[in-house]
Structure formats: structure tokens, C-alpha cells
């Protein structure tokens, strides 16, 4: 069979992971779960790798579910957190994280805005987490606005960020509406892409997307 792949990857190399997680991955990431107990780690240490990777065993099922919850929460936060940036290079926003994944979310924003200080307020823990230009993370129990003010005081106004100080909410709303093709409407698929629980996230509560939810239809739309 012809190989169309231009880079010469060995065809039998496993792309991605084997099923399940390694013990190291579990030890590193399971403590992030809000319902984690050290007893689970003890159990993991006593069980063979094969049993953990076999999704049929009850322990593996539980662990996989917990890991999935942790990573999907981090992913949803990266997707749906809406941020603002001020003219002093402070990027800030609000998140709702039950599990301890704030560092993953902060690093995501830090990778994209390495010059900025990123502040994220977690509504669940009521703490504000910061990551600075060097990648150091700090967590403090102070409201977001105060943290942003405190950090901003120490930084001068930067022309780069000053240039993008205007409201973007309308711009995104207009862009979003312009992309929708009415004839291709597919509420089921839409719901799959943005499940209902995502509308509880701070960035999506008043989001444009919510207005297009199926249960938000006006009576007129049913009549005509």
C-alpha cells in the first residue's frame, strides 16, 4: 500500500497512548481530583499495571473516570474561559474549577501570553491564582479586582496592550452570528459540542452561544 505521509514515520509505531494511564501519570494527576483519598494511591501501588490498563476492572473504571473528570474540567476551562487584558499587560478572567487543575489552565494562558501576568479567580475555591512572566504560580485569597489592581500598579502602561483597549464583546457576538448557516442548523450536534453543564462556567453564563440553545426559542418560531 502506498504511504502518502510525507514525514517518514515508522508505520507500526503506536501513535498516542496505550489504553489507560501509567502509574506515574496516575500518581501525578489523581491527587488533583476533589474526591481523591490517599487510599486510592495505596491500591494503585498494590495492583499490576495490566489491571490498571484494563478498563474492565472496577478499580480501573473508577480511576479512568476520575482522570477523565480532571482532564475534561481543565480542557473546558481552556475552551470557555473568557479573559480580559488591561493596558499594563495583566490578563485576567474567572474560572469554576472543582478539581485542582488551575496550574494547567494558567500554563495554557502563559504559553500564549508569555509577557503577561495571568490572574484567574476560581469561583469554587474563592481564590485568585497568578502566573508571572517566569512561570511561577501563586495562589492568594484576595478578590480578582484587587489582585489585578495590585499587579497593575507595579507595571507601566505598555503601548502594545494599550492599542487593544476596546470592547470586544460586540465584535465576537457579531462574528459568531455571521458564521451561522441557518440551513445547516443541528441542535443535537450543537448540544454535543457545548453540553448543558458548560453554560454554568463563568465565561459562558452570558455567552452569545446560550441564546441559540434549543429551549430558548421564541413562541413565534414555533408558530411560523
Amino acid at each position, binding site marked *: 500500500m502506498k504511504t502518502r505521509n510525507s514525514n517518514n514515520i515508522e508505520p507500526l509505531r503506536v501513535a498516542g497512548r496505550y489504553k489507560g494511564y501509567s502509574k506515574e501519570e496516575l500518581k501525578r494527576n489523581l491527587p488533583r481530583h476533589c474526591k481523591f483519598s490517599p487510599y486510592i494511591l495505596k491500591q494503585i501501588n498494590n495492583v499490576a499495571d495490566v489491571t490498571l490498563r484494563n478498563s474492565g476492572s472496577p478499580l480501573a473504571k473508577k480511576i479512568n473516570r476520575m482522570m477523565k473528570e480532571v482532564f475534561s474540567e481543565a480542557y473546558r476551562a481552556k475552551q470557555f474561559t473568557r479573559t480580559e487584558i488591561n493596558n499594563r499587560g495583566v490578563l485576567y478572567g474567572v474560572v469554576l474549577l472543582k478539581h485542582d487543575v488551575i496550574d494547567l489552565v494558567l500554563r495554557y494562558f502563559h504559553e500564549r501570553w508569555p509577557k503577561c501576568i495571568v490572574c484567574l479567580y476560581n469561583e469554587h475555591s474563592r481564590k485568585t491564582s497568578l502566573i508571572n512572566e517566569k512561570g511561577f504560580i501563586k495562589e492568594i485569597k484576595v478578590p480578582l479586582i484587587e489582585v489585578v489592581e495590585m499587579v497593575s500598579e507595579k507595571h507601566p502602561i505598555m503601548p502594545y496592550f494599550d492599542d487593544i483597549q476596546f470592547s*470586544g464583546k460586540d465584535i465576537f457576538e457579531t462574528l459568531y452570528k455571521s458564521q451561522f448557516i441557518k440551513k445547516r442548523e*443541528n441542535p443535537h450536534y450543537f448540544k454535543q459540542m457545548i453540553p448543558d453543564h458548560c453554560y454554568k462556567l463563568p465565561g459562558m453564563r452570558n455567552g452569545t452561544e446560550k441564546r441559540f440553545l434549543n429551549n430558548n426559542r421564541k413562541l413565534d418560531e414555533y408558530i411560523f
Partner: protein
Amino acid sequence: MPSTLEKIRILGANSRYDICASTASSRTDKYPRLFGKSNDWIGATSSGGICHSYTPDGRCVSLFKTLYTNKCIYSCKYCYSSICKHKLSFTPEEYARTFMKLYSMNVVEGVFISSGVCGSADAVTEEMLEAVRLLRFKYHFQGYIHFKCLPGLSQYLLKEAISLSDRISINSEASNKEFLAEIAEQKDFTNDIILRQRWLKSLREKYNEKTIKELKDLEQDNYGKLSFQEKMIKERRKNGYKAFRWDGAPILNGGQTTQFVLGAVESETDWDLLNRIDWQYRKVDIRRAYFSAFIPIEGTPLGHKKPAPLEREHRLYQTDWLLRIYNYNLNDLKDIVDETGNLPNGDPKIHIARVYFKEHGPLDPNHSTYQELLRIPGIGPISAKRIVNLRAKKITFKSRSDLKSVGVVLKRADPFLKINGHNQTTLNNFI
């Protein structure tokens, strides 16, 4: 003077039928970053992009996707721009600034810049490139940029577009000259599309060969990668960005793509499209093809036509996946295409498997090759690789549950599998 919002509303609506994926991971950590590891650069493409929103049709909105201008000398019969009464254009500064605002809000992941052809393709592309230059060198954006090559574009501008963007696409629209003439008579299929695709291939290969070779030489060199990057950065400072050479990163990592309008020409069949795609994969090295089911727009010459079924789009994407990822041959698909030249309803992989396994009989995963495993529905490249790797470690599959634990979807794979000499019978077999 129209406001930016008005421009986004109209130019965004004009480009909504264009398809693109922001999730293309255009660069990897394998190569040095495009601009080195300086903290001055904003944005990231080393991992796959994230979709920040979805429209009610389920498609993601993760790129700033608008036309640069909807003024166009072409009058393609399916196109919204040709009948849109409001003719508007962005300015490069306005475009770049608006995008950076959206990027700071974490609502978009990159840029998709396309345009109507106002006057000459070169003049519009110059302006589009100016917007991209501003993004790259004023706003220091090193994230994902998808650039649309306009029909009739000069080679020197294409060269510059290559050096500035992650992905370039040229819309094929139809599978051959005759079909294109039916929907866009002013476009020349050979010159405007095929020739430009060939240029893209040769330019990219030439540039990347050079950079990969330099990288390899430097890895053997005592000084290592760091001195190479330093050398490149110095060179950039000396010559300005036009002579700027990417810091060893092979350019245009997202490759080139293309797009087809499905169902605008009635006589165009799925087989015609598959033939063209296969040719493009082999000859011009396109990364992937997109299909856009034709939707009639009132006021256009094709406004009275029936829309193409979305199902057709789905089948073609599935088949394209078989060609691209599963390395199926075009001849394998020939067996399932009906007399009219179209794909049947249902998963094409299952149709191909029914034909193939009728001849060859069910397969034993303990003795089949990687390519044979790929033919079984429910087994994809990853589970096939897992099976082959486990077999290499002398692990045999004794039951169906063994296969399930490596990720095989038994529901689909069962009728085509033989484990320990036994085949899972189905109700159909009895009937």
C-alpha cells in the same frame, strides 16, 4: 464610513461557507520555534488548537474567519459575494487590531484570511499580506494563520505568503475544468488552481529541504542548536523581516489544503471528486480536502437549485479519511461506488469490508498484517498498531474481550473476525 462591526457582520457572512479547521497542529516541539524561544512572541501552535465556540450548526468558531474584501471581479454562480450589495474592505491595521482583541479574549485561536478579487489578485493579496505582516511583526503573533491563495496570484507573493502563514489553501471548487466552467466560468482550472498548487508544493519542499538539512548539519556540529538560533536572529536584525529566515523551523507546517463545492454541478459525481483528491494527495501534496455541501443562496444564478444533502458531505469526509489516514487505494473505493458514480448510504469502510471479506473470509487478528487489520471496521490505525505491537511481544488474542481491551469496537468488527478459528455469527448468517 462603515464601522468595524458592520464589516465583520457582512464580510463574516460572506466567508461562512468557507471551511477550515483550527485544530490543525501546525508545528511541533521537534523543531525550534518559528521565532526562537523569546517571550516577545504571542500565541502558540505547538499543540492542537482548541475550539472556543460552536455555532448552532455544530461547526466550531475558533478562527477569525472573514473576507478581507467582498469586492470581486469574478461572478461565481454559487457565491454570496457576487450578489451582496454592501461592498466593504478591511484596512490591514483594523484587521490585525480586531483579531488581537479577540485573541486576548480567548475566543479565537488563529486567523483565516480570504478575500474577493478586487482588481487584481496581486493587489488584494498585497493588502492581505500587509495585515499578516502587522500581526506577525507589529503584534508579534506567532499563532495559527491560514492564508487563502487567490486565483491568478503571482509566485513572488505566494512565496511571501508561505513564509508568513501556517497553512495555505487554494479552492478547487470542482473536480475538473468542465465542471468548474459551469459554476465559475471566469476561473481557469489549470492555471488558477493546479499551477498554483504545484508552485506551493515545490516552494515548500525546496525551502523545507534546505532548513531540515541545515538543522541536521547543526545537530552534528559542536555548537548545537543554540548557536544556530542565535545566528538566525542576528541575520534577521541585519536584514529586516523580509530577508528573515525562520529559525530553522520548516515552513508552512500546516501544508496546503483545498475545498470543493458539492452538488453545485449536478453531473459531478463522488467518484470524480475522489479521483481529483487522490491525484492531489499524490501529485501536489495537499494535506487534506474540505467539502462544502452546496446551499442555494437567493439571488445567485444557482439560487433555484436544490441544496446538496449534508449526508453526501459526510460520506465524502469518511472516504477521504480512508484515503488519507488508512492509506486505502482508490481502486478499493471503485468497488462500492454505484452506477451513477456516487457513494452508497452508510459507512464506506463497512461497504468496502463486505466486498473484501466476501472474497477473503474473516480474519484472525493473530495472523493478519497491519494493512489487513485496517480493513476491519471497528479497528483503526491506533488499535491495529497496538495489536501488531502486542503480537511482537508474543501476546496472542484468545478471546473477543482481549481485543476490546486494546480498543477494538467489537460491535462493528465481529462479523469480520475469526478468533481461535471461531467466527462470531450474526442473525444475518442464519437467515
